[in-house]
């Protein structure tokens, strides 16, 4: 079975390490915050200027001056700090964020990512995504492996305008956990009950399968 949004988030959360500063993008990445292992501490960075994002506020705690990058009302965790947007992107561009998780429309074997614009449709903008992919060394892209019509989103070459070039090394889809290196996809894990053949069929770019591919543990 393909992973649900929650299960994708759950698997990403296993990549978190104690003491990590993490930036979570909008959508599935945001859900990762719900699955932080109990025995580690991570701090969430929100690029609008908050390090140490807490949970959503109660009705009584709502503060119009305290939102995350998705414009949702949030709270501050213990030890949080606030700062301006230039400082926020100094952290991001300067490589100080340990892990970035964000969504995408397409990725390709060269680590290119397209995530912000579909020509001909409404163009909303890249927000902070271009800075995040350019600045982070450790990025996990979360996405569906293929469209509803079975068209692969893991490509030889991205067809849509790029958000970043050669910057993606790890992709977690609803079917597989994949590493990108030396111009190829490398299959690391498969979703429970999903066969290697299914993954190969839905991957347009070259994919390397070495030995037995383990199922993800959730």
């Amino acid at each position, binding site marked *: 079975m393909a992973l649900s949004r929650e299960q994708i988030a759950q698997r990403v959360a296993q990549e978190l390490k104690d003491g990590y500063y993490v930036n979570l993008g909008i959508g599935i990445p945001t859900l990762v915050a719900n699955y932080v292992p109990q025995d580690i501490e991570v701090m969430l960075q929100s690029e609008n200027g908050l390090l140490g994002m807490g949970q959503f506020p109660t009705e009584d705690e709502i503060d119009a001056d305290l939102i995350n990058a998705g414009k949702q009302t949030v709270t501050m965790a213990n030890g949080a700090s606030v700062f301006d*947007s230039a400082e926020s992107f100094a952290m991001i561009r300067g490589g100080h964020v340990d892990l970035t998780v964000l969504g995408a429309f397409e990725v390709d074997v060269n680590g290119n990512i397209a995530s912000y614009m579909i020509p001909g449709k409404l163009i909303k903008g890249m927000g902070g995504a*271009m800075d995040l992919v350019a600045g982070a060394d450790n990025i996990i892209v979360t996405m569906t492996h293929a469209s509803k019509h079975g068209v692969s989103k893991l490509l030889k070459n991205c067809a849509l305008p790029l958000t970043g070039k050669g910057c993606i090394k790890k992709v977690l889809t609803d079917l597989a956990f994949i590493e990108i290196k030396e111009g190829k996809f490398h299959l690391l894990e498969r979703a429970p009950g999903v066969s290697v053949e299914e993954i190969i069929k839905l991957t347009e770019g070259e994919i390397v399968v070495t030995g037995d591919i383990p199922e993800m543990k959730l």
Partner: protein
Amino acid sequence: MAGFDKVVSSYEEAMAGLTDNMTIIAGGFGLCGIPENLIAEIKRKGTKDLTLVSNNCGVDDFGLGVLLPNRQIKKIVASYVGENAEFERQMMAGELEVELTPQGTLAEKMRAGGAGIPAFFTATGVGTPVAEGKEERTFNGRDYILEEAIVGDFAIVKAWKADRYGNLVFRKTARNFNPLAATAGKITVVEVEEIVEVGELDPDQIHTPGIYVNRVIQGTFEKRIEQRTTRPSDMHEAKGE
């Protein structure tokens, strides 16, 4: 003699000198920390063909979105737009020029503009549509593009508190682009929730020194929330926070 006293008493006075075709840099992120009454004053004045530099363009009836119906904005430089229908209509019809700029680059353009740095190199946008027409250079084996700074004829800023000299304190994530915008305006206008006497703000706690600020006005704010997200309060108690 006014000395360093920057306080003005009307919004008309606050935006005096703004004319057609000017560039305005605005603070705010979404609807958080936007100078809502200064924007309303620009609408009232009816100034046209403006270039707006702002992370977003508000929603249909709030924030910079209110300048759209009367076609007051000629061009917007922003990182994320399209939270309103009239914006989409004008953009698709080619009536509104939109220059999409990565959020960090936009912040740095303002910072650089205010700091007298005409341009800077960044890896953000290399190999993407953002790099088109820009100079590229390699430093230590990595490619970077040259991005130019932005200076505005006006900067419009929302802060929490100011003293009469224009020293500013921001509150939580309403800070965002505001301190950067404040440095990058030829005329910087700040609206605040509270004006205090000089000496009342702790110098160690001032986010923006008054040297960047030309005019200060006290206003009342709606502070609209774009995405009201909450958790149940019993869960809150269960966690003992």
